[in-house]
């Protein structure tokens, strides 16, 4: 049951990335290009994706937080780490740099595999190597 729920949630997430246009790196870069505001070329869509996401997720999260176990069984795996560390900021800066270079973050990169493009596959392979390498070096938070 839990595996089926995961498949459905992943599929809905994939619908969201596709419909919102976030599956297209150019859409993401159009948002990150706040320097184009003056020329009128800025695309605020990503902020609306975040806004729509938070508007729906926040009430569900508030309800979920009141539960001691998940509906399909098992614990509520809510993060307990609250510490603001240099690692957290450094990781964010490294991630943001890669994000700004191509326009892919992990979710859209994986969803875009659906298009079967070589560039996307290469990005995902490099990303997975980076994740595996960082974990092997025990750099993970």
């Amino acid at each position: 049951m839990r595996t089926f729920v995961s498949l459905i949630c992943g599929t809905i997430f994939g619908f969201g990335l596709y419909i919102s246009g976030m599956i297209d790196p150019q859409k993401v870069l159009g948002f990150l290009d706040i320097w184009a505001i003056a020329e009128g070329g800025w695309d605020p869509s990503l902020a609306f994706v975040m806004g729509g996401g938070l508007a729906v997720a926040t009430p569900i999260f508030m309800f979920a937080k009141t539960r001691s176990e998940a509906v399909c069984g098992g614990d509520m795996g809510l993060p307990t780490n609250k510490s603001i560390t240099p690692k957290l900021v450094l990781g964010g800066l490294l991630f943001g740099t890669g994000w700004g270079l191509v326009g892919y973050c992990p979710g859209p990169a994986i969803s875009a595999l659906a298009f079967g493009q070589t560039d996307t596959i290469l990005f995902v392979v490099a990303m997975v190597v980076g994740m595996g390498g960082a974990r092997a070096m025990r750099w993970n938070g």
Partner: protein
Amino acid sequence: MENFTPVSALIGGGLIGLASGLYLLLNGRIAGISGILGGILAPSKGDKTLFERLAFIVGLVFGPLILMTGTPLEAQSVVTNSLPVIIVAGLLVGVGTTVGSGCTSGHGICGLSRFSLRSLVATLSFMAAGFVTVLVTRHLMGGL
């Protein structure tokens, strides 16, 4: 602002929020894509969530496949960079999300939905780096 698509952005964002909320409510897990993927690469001992994680990743690819083959909805995913830039960017995203314990979904959607200060700091960090990177590559270097 000719590329601005507020309606589809809100609907798509709402679906992302719905998927994240349901995943926590039903399975008790945070829908952070980098975390889900990282757990597949390096499963901890006794972790029984491998198939759940794989199913989520399969769904991420399945969703767009369903829409592009079964509906008139169209989308594209345009990468304009050279091979070395693609590889470096992929490595940076992989290492950065591992060191920083999350990405746009885990920190940006799930973290902010539970009012986590830690996730807010992470989100501001990657947003700031994204803005600066685009400034440098698009406006100072004229494209990379």
